[in-house]
């Protein structure tokens, strides 16, 4: 596929955190291509670098983190070479992010109206009354009843699901072409989760935007995305169309993740991926997954695997992908 189809092209991104204990290589050479208009999933355990990749794209990596290398092209703009002032114009307006915890992603001191109109006025330069009207419309869009009344509410007066809808509304208020959803449903209960996911699907269609869903929940990946990238210890281990990934995973880590999904149709004990995510200050040699991999051989400890194309749409970083017969979950 041509690169014109990609709204976001991340090449060899490296974002390190310079802590006192050492340099944490949270993202270490990640390359991801996100197709325009699609929904792309980023999946992996906590600490695999999913969120940091998103934060790097918006250039809001918290200290002591720093982007040390790579190239990010968004809509033909070289994001990493922009002045801070110019990135600020992109943020919120052309790319936005919805965070994990709705409880803390709104400033407790200001009304909903204030928080929504702030963004609208910042980027669109509308006056107060018009901005309030816009804010009300967008609240109705995300399915908040009595939107007019909610505008004057403070965050503590609203439920978690409601707050997450408002966070989504705020991210959408300037109709960005790319939206990151960083575990948007992790802190919500299951019924609300379903509603929020449904909402995001509808909104994506209505706005014609590209969605990048960050999650560790394979269920959400299956439900929402067309393409998916599996991250492990700050590196990409597999990228494929969602169907292909579930059907025929090529990386043992992907297989392990799929195995760990609880299923209603097959009675079995819940499996987890053995071991823990490695220390990112001194990651394991060779393939970073080798200490936890049931198929690991000598070469895995010594040589770093590179991404190889299985098909034009499917790539994997594993020394043994050709010989292994891995089980999907379909």
């Amino acid at each position: 596929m041509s690169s014109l189809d990609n709204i976001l092209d991340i090449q060899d991104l490296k974002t390190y955190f310079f802590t006192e204990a050492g340099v944490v290589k949270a993202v270490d050479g990640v390359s991801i291509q996100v197709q325009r208009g699609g929904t792309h999933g980023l999946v992996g355990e906590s600490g695999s670098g999913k969120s940091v990749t998103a934060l790097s794209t918006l250039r809001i990596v918290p200290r002591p983190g720093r982007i040390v290398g790579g190239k990010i092209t968004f809509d033909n703009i070289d994001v990493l070479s922009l002045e801070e002032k110019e990135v600020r114009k992109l943020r919120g307006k052309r790319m936005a992010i919805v965070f994990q915890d709705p409880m803390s992603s709104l400033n407790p001191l200001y009304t909903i109206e204030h928080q929504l109109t702030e963004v609208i006025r910042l980027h669109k330069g509308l006056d107060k009354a018009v901005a309030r009207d816009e804010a009300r419309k967008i609240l109705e869009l995300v399915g908040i009843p009595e939107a007019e009344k909610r505008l004057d509410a403070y965050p503590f007066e609203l439920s978690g699901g409601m707050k997450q809808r408002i966070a989504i509304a705020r991210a959408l208020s300037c109709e960005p072409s790319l939206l990151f959803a960083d575990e948007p449903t992790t802190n919500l209960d299951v019924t609300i989760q379903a509603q929020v996911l449904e909402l995001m699907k509808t909104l994506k269609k209505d706005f014609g935007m590209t969605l990048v869903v960050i999650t560790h929940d394979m269920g959400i990946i299956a439900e929402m995305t067309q393409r998916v990238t599996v991250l492990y210890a700050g590196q990409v281990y597999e990228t494929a169309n969602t169907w292909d990934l579930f059907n025929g995973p090529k990386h043992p880590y992907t297989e392990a993740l799929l195995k760990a999904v609880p299923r209603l149709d097959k009675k079995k004990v819940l499996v987890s991926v053995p071991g823990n995510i490695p220390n990112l200050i001194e990651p394991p040699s060779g393939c970073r997954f080798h200490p936890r991999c049931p198929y690991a051989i000598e070469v895995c400890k010594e040589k770093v695997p590179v991404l190889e194309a299985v098909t034009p749409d499917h790539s994997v970083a594993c020394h043994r992908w050709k010989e292994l017969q891995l089980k999907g979950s379909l």
Partner: protein
Amino acid sequence: MGFAIVIAFFIFAFVLPVLASIRLPDGSHLISLYPARSFEALYQGQEGQPPSWQHPFGTELAGIDVFSDSVWGARNDLYVGIAATLLATVIGIAVGAVAGYSKGIISASLLGIIQVFFVIPVLLLILLFARVYSVLVFAGFGLTLIVLILGFFGWSGIAFVVRGEIFRVKELEFIQAEKALGASNFRILFRHIVPNILTPVIVIASLSVAGNILTEVVISFLGFGDPNTATWGLLIQEGSTYVSTYWWVSFFPGLLVVLIVLGFNLLGDGLSDALNPRLRE
């Protein structure tokens, strides 16, 4: 309770003079206040009188009505306490906020500056300035001089607290969310972070009003104040030389100092409880 005491002092300082200016139909005054620093009682042969209905706090040997001067003194002391605190709070928030939010060399050097100001003995500085600029002091700018010095040298405590609080608040998710929406650093810092850290600042400010009033009293008591401006410290100092016989000259202003310091301290405690959401039922 602290709030009630502080309000009572405001009434004492600002409502009483208004009441005193009202004339009853028969031409007499509701309450009589002498002008500040006036020796009228001397001409009436009332100098050195113990407390009475006419002179509730008595009069001193030069004929000054202690009650009247206490009222005018309350105004001046509240001015010193509050104005100096406001000045220190504004500087403290600005410096502390930037020190807490910026990074690298700016943050480090601001911290250094805060620490330097933290160890400056403000009282000695004021005494020094009062001597050097005695012309200003006698021209009636003594109080403003004290306010400026207390303000410009007394902000480091607030700056420390602000800096620490900002470390806490700036890591919260809504700050990152603001950044992701394209807000500028200035906007994030002063519209989103600072309002979230005002609680401890308000409490400290309330306590520091009491501290600043005490400092003013000490300065006047040591004789470095303006002898032509009515303050409690001045009254206490004037009475101190003959406290064994004319005790009321020092006693009543002293009592007021104790009460106002108590009042602002209780107010600070009360505010810290009232503003702490964890202590609300």
